[in-house]
């Protein structure tokens, strides 16, 4: 899953450790999300969205267009 976390973090001038501290996760977790090694849990995705003031889908992109039921 692609995401804009690195860009959003860079815009604010935060290090991975600083972002991790604000999200209550480790620097390694932030790095793993940024590099696409790990997709965050739903609670963590919500925390990320709230921190940046964005919706989850504005940060994470699963590459799927349209709706599943349409």
């Amino acid at each position, binding site marked *: 899953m692609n995401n804009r976390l690195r860009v959003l973090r860079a815009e604010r001038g935060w290090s991975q*450790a600083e972002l*991790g*501290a604000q999200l209550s996760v480790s620097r*390694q*977790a932030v790095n793993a999300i940024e590099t696409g*090694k*790990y*997709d965050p849990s739903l*609670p963590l995705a919500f925390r990320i969205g709230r921190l940046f003031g964005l919706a989850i889908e504005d940060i994470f992109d699963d590459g799927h267009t349209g709706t599943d039921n349409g």
Partner: protein
Amino acid sequence: MAYDPLAPTEQGQANAFRGAWIGLVTTLVLILAYFLPVWPWVETICLAATALLAMFMLTGRHDDYFNVLREIGMRWAMATIGLWLFAHAFFAVGEIAYKVGSFAAGARPDIIAPKQAAPFNFLRDAYLLAIVSSLGFFAGFAFARVRRAA
């Protein structure tokens, strides 16, 4: 997010990942020490470190990513134990088949010698199984850390 006075710090959580790498190294040393003579104090220190790290990794409060890696490590450890038991069962079946075959060929049951019990006795060694399954855990954790975890 509600304030949690006991929540681990970012530094503490980052240290937990380093602990996993240390655990991998100490487990490798233990396996080396099992087969090769090393200084006893090195083995003792590594044994204590591995035990403490294993307990810490299973009981400490960690972030989601760490928990995912830990789960993968535990799957590897269980797979290691499963393979170990399968190997044990395989050789046990071989031993039984040998005795049955010898009996069917006309040998007296009381003079059928064990086929090859000694070379596989290590499979009954609980300490070796413990350190090998520990290696499975830390290796699985490290593998998932390097590769894509979830």
